[in-house]
């Protein structure tokens, strides 16, 4: 059985851990509110842009001239997975869920005989991927200095990505991140961002007919050339925002649980400590009394 002193030490240590988790919980809660607002504010733009790109994409007939970002390279051999995770831990299973989703996708692709490469955004994705696919990481974007994701950050990543897409012989690009549903639910997803997938539409639908009447200025191709890189930027931006909100949500929940667990542990240890203290007193009393009787 642990000595009184050891118990006291453990109680003190759990208490200080609890202080940390409690503080982190409150910090995460405060940051969560702002991050959620930003994630929600970013959604309309992303949705509209995706809609517009989708509608133009379904109109432009794929040909040798059409932009690569739209129709792809015509091959399906080399896949790049952009893995966006948080930079810090202490957020429950948030990061590992994203990594797991990306790994599942990668395993699938490898089984189909494709080459898989990784582009890492955020610190927490790297270790696992490096272990499983040691040679697949082609680049990493450092976001540790970044307090809140900005459009410029997303732009830097997108530009780099498009450069690599055009020069490195990559055929398909996926983006892995976590959709922020609520504080408790973050859903890891892997989405294809290059080439753009036009929304599934049946031929001869009225939606297509009304699109045909749209007047483009300059023409579709030029609009697309301008729009496609922007679309990729915004997808990445959205992923970063959703990740940020999800991260704080997850961290808040995790730290809340940790604080509660620490509380339970302190209670248990205190009871044990008090019982033991009483046992020591009782033993002492017995010793004194039996000593007195012997005299």
């Amino acid at each position, binding site marked *: 059985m642990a000595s009184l002193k050891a118990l006291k030490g453990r109680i003190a240590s759990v208490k200080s851990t609890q202080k940390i988790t409690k503080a982190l919980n409150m910090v995460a809660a405060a940051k969560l509110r702002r991050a959620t607002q930003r994630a929600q504010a970013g959604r*309309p733009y992303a949705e509209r842009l995706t809609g517009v790109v989708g509608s133009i994409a379904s109109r432009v007939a794929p040909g040798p001239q059409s932009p690569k970002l739209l129709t792809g390279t015509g091959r399906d051999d080399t896949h790049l997975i952009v893995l966006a995770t948080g930079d810090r831990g202490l957020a429950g299973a948030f990061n590992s869920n994203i990594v797991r989703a990306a790994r599942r996708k990668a395993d699938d692709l490898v089984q189909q005989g494709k080459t898989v490469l990784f582009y890492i955004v955020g610190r927490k994705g790297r270790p696992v991927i490096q272990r499983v696919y040691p040679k697949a990481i082609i680049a990493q974007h450092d976001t540790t200095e970044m307090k809140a994701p900005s459009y410029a950050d997303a732009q830097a990543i997108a530009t780099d990505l498009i450069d690599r897409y055009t020069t490195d012989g990559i055929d398909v690009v996926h983006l892995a991140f976590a959709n922020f549903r609520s504080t408790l639910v973050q859903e890891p997803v892997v989405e294809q961002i290059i080439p753009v997938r036009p929304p599934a539409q049946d031929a001869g639908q009225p939606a297509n007919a009304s*699109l045909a009447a749209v007047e483009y200025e*300059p023409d579709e191709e030029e*609009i697309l050339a*301008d*729009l496609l890189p922007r679309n990729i930027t915004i997808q990445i931006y959205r992923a970063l925002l959703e990740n940020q909100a999800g991260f704080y949500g997850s961290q808040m929940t995790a730290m809340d649980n940790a604080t509660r667990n620490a509380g339970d542990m302190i209670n248990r240890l205190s009871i044990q400590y008090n019982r033991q203290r009483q046992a020591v007193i009782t033993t002492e009393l017995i010793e004194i009394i039996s000593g007195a009787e012997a005299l």
Partner: protein
Amino acid sequence: MADLHFELVTPDRQVMSDDVHMVVVPGVEGDSGIMAGHAPYMTTLKNGELAVYRSAGTQPERIAVTGGFAEVSDRGLTVLAESAGE
């Protein structure tokens, strides 16, 4: 005449969502005034100013936009801009 539903959206927020009389957008091939009932139309914007006329004959509200894109559909006019400031 019915009002034009106008939305101005940037990556950070929805700047404006309102029913207005007319909006003049700085298209790459020239400014164009968009009113309700405009035919479906899509253009990229040059960096410049949007002029929003709340009602006929009033002073326009001017909003600077960069890196934008405008779409007119039966739902109204939607301007997607990388940044917008008044």
